């Protein structure tokens, strides 16, 4: 363990994030309630500083750190930038959420978000199965707490479901790590890559399945997706935005690294298996989204189907030259577009149902435009970033000989248009003002309780503009995210070039 690569500066973004988390926690202990936003500001600063550090590191050479257990290469760099950017947007959404600003445990929220983000970054960069397992836990445990942060019935249920499934699949992950250790005599990816092709196939497949289970849980792919709709619907809207975006990025990057590294030469079982999981994910996600009327649930299922597309490059990793940049670009495009859609949801805390969005285009045209851009972006309409991502992903699948997979993904894209349009149509074409119908329709719903509490809480008045149906601060995220989604698509050429470098190790 006396390698020459034990330079903490290689992990500067991660160190910054973790350091800010600790500092924010300490700060929160001493700050009075009405100044807790300072902790949030510190978190935002940490994220921004981490972004700068990650960008600098991305421009630097490719390499590994800490005895080759951590990679600093395009996958890590992109993962860092997208995760930190996504976390930054989530933090902004939280800082502008009237409910959260009034919450007594405001600081804890920011700290948990930062810690979960560190976990996601570790997942993206881990080049050692043990570090992968550690990243999994670090990304999961704060997320459980976030899911139940509102401490109401729905939130508790969401957190419990999330936790139980996470614990189960975490055990599977650890089992997989153990089995792969037995098969490959090591946990570092370079060593595993040498050893696994000659190891007993049964062991490799068993271990690979276990690791895949962990990846699928963090990315919310079928069959480890059961927690996602409940967690997104039951928790706060910014938490939903976080859970459907940030951990996915880390997990999919980890999946890609596994596929392109240790499992690359172990036979066709991996691509075929992941292909099946991808198809199941996009298809089931779409089918379930068809009948949803709650916008958060709909978005949750939409993210499950998006994971299906994102798993395509993971399936064909190493079998085409187009896989890596396809995955990374899609991840970036997906993150910004999905966060944009969630930002609109955050901006309208009372609008829980599709029908509540009726007439939004007349009431708040700019917000409606942002929503339509993001939803059409999620469909994959050019010239948005997700379109370019889909193009790259389909090309990669084609090029690797998985034409059927690209065809299924295209068919699923058509299917997904249907439920996005179910949201777009009332938004643009309806006439009733938003927020009129939710009051009689969902008296028993948790989210409404949240919004209602924000209205009833005397502290909320100081932050909200008195209009409880509209949290104006969220548009600060919604508009830039929608614009970024289009710009990233239009100007994606140079970005794609940056993503194509070789993996470390």
């Amino acid at each position: 363990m006396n390698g020459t690569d034990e330079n903490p500066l290689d992990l500067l973004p991660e160190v910054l994030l973790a350091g800010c988390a600790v500092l924010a926690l300490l700060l929160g202990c001493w700050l009075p309630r009405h100044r807790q936003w300072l902790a949030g500001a510190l978190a935002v600063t940490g994220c921004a500083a981490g972004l700068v550090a990650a960008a600098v590191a991305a421009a630097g050479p490719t390499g590994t750190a800490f005895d080759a257990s951590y990679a600093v290469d395009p996958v890590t760099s992109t993962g860092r930038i997208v995760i930190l950017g996504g976390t930054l947007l989530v933090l902004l959404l939280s800082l502008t959420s009237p409910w959260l600003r009034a919450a007594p445990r405001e600081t804890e929220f920011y700290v948990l978000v930062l810690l979960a983000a560190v976990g996601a970054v570790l997942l993206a960069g881990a080049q050692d199965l043990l570090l992968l397992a550690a990243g999994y836990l670090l990304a999961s445990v704060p997320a459980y707490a976030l899911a139940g942060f509102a401490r109401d019935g729905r939130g508790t249920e969401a957190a419990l479901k999330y936790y139980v499934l996470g614990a189960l699949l975490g055990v599977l992950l650890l089992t997989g790590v153990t089995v792969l250790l037995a098969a490959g005599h090591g946990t570092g990816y370079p060593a595993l890559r040498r050893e696994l092709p000659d190891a007993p196939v049964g062991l490799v497949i068993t271990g690979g399945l276990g690791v895949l289970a962990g990846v699928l849980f963090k990315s919310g792919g079928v069959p480890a997706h059961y927690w996602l709709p409940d967690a997104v619907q039951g928790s706060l809207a910014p938490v939903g935005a976080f859970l459907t975006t940030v951990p996915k990025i880390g997990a999919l990057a980890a999946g890609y690294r596994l596929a392109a590294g240790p499992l690359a030469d172990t036979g066709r079982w991996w691509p075929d298996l992941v292909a099946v999981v991808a198809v199941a994910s996009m298809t089931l996600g779409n089918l379930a989204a068809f009948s949803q009327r709650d916008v958060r649930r709909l978005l949750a299922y939409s993210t499950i189907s998006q994971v299906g597309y994102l798993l395509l490059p993971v399936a064909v990793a190493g079998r085409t030259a187009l896989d890596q940049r396809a995955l990374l670009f899609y991840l970036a495009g997906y993150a910004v577009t999905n966060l944009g859609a969630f930002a609109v949801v955050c901006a309208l805390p009372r609008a829980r149902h599709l029908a509540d969005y009726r007439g939004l285009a007349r009431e708040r045209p700019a917000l409606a435009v942002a929503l339509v851009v993001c939803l059409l972006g999620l469909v994959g309409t050019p010239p948005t970033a997700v379109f370019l991502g889909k193009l790259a992903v389909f090309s990669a699948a084609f090029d690797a000989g998985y034409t059927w997979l690209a065809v299924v993904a295209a068919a699923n894209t058509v299917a997904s248009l249907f439920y996005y349009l179910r949201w777009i149509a009332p938004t643009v074409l309806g006439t009733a003002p938003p927020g009129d119908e939710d009051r009689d329709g969902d008296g028993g719903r948790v989210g409404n309780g949240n919004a209602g509490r924000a209205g009833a809480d005397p502290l909320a008045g100081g932050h909200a503009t008195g209009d409880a149906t509209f949290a104006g601060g969220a548009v600060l995220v919604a508009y830039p995210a929608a614009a970024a989604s289009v710009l990233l698509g239009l100007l994606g050429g140079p970005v794609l070039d940056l993503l194509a470098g070789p993996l470390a190790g």
Partner: protein
Amino acid sequence: MLTVLVLLPTAVAVSLLCLPRGTPRSVHVAWTATAVVELALTATIWLRHPAGGGLSHQERARWLPSVGAGYHVGVDGLSLPLVAMSCVLFLACALYTWRQTDRVREFAVLFLFLQSTSLGLFVALDLILFFLFFDLSLVAMYFVIAGWGHRDAARSALLFFLYTFTGSLALLLGFIGLYLAADPHTFDIVELTRDDPLAGRTTHGALVLLAVGVGLAIKTPTVPFHTWLPPAHTDAPAAGSAVLAGVLLKMGTYGFLRIAMPVMPGAWRGAAVVFVVVGVVSVVYGALVAFAQTDFKRMVAYTSVNHMGYIVLAVGAAGTLGGDGPAGDRARHLAVTGSVFQMVSHGLLTGALFLLCGVLYERGGTHRTAAYSGVAHRAPVFAALTGVAAFASLGLPGFSGFIAEFQILTGSLGPQPVATGLALLGVLLTAALLLRAVRQVFTGPLRLPPTGPGQATTTRSFPDLAWHETASLTPLLALAVVLGLLPRFVLDVIEPASLGVLRLLAR
């Protein structure tokens, strides 16, 4: 120049959205002025287009070099007539909706955006650019139908969007297939045309052509992919229908000429008979179903299936090469030229017919043919213009439709005599059904849809065309006459390009 042509309407649309909400009149003025400027720009491009053919006004810019896609636009004899026709039609729509009061600004913005996407598609020389405009035109048209349509508009718009979006994804898969087959990988249509990347790869070529063919066939639409068309047309607002049938449908057939034939000549020749059959079935089936319609607008919609069928027949016949020497070459050249001419002619005429349907609906409140009789008594100008449009559409000599169909049928007769013979049946049927509908609506004793239960059938007011309606319809029909009598100036532009397509096809 082309970039300005494509982006100007969108720029105006954005400024309409960003500037403070003006009066409907000012919006209309801005919209119409933009349409006039676009037409003037197109005229300039037309005049500067070289007589010898080939691509002109090309513009290139690096866009997504790592994906092999670039910004590459240009016009030739295939696209220039369509660009000009689209500009005329969009101007007609702007004039037609001069008195509209329902959300004028949004309507104008969507139409300006639609104009950008349509022109962009016709001048695109890159598959991704083509696809981008293809998809965006769907989005804009979806909102036009869903927002301003009547009756079951939301459902029809959804059907339209889902159906044609399916087509667009099939298209995208085909494009990716082409991209990966090319070496180096590229989406540039000019480079792909030069390289013929699928040469000698029969299976891959057939699959790519299947994907591209299905995508374009849905858009065209040909039987059996036409089922989205009648409901979309029936429920769309008149100007929306005019653009949908006049411009958007051409994207499908234009794609055959621009992409399928020159880039995949081997695969096209192999599958040409399929397209011939599909074309003839569309011609005959479209005419038969149109014959059975009791709704005037639905009938016009089905005649579109029929008219687009001729184009598919012609491009299919052009692909059935035989060792029949120069006579066969001339015939195929005639067929391809006729197919482009038919696109222009059909765009003008069906655009006019749909706008006339809109006039009928606005005054009578229904499209049902049987609800009207003797309308010519009340609205002679309307009756005269509809008569002209109907005669032109059925292919009477002296109108553009005749030139187009004559060329297509003469050109296809040599390579595909049986199919062309069957297609002639479609001409007869179309003539019969259009004449029957015109007779029903305009001649005989006056009978109009009653304004309420128990009301007499003559009490409803049925004013003749207003000036803006006349101003929008007359140029379309006048152009149809000019093209019918003096087609040379358009044919001179088309012919070098269609010769080029055939040369590429014969590789």
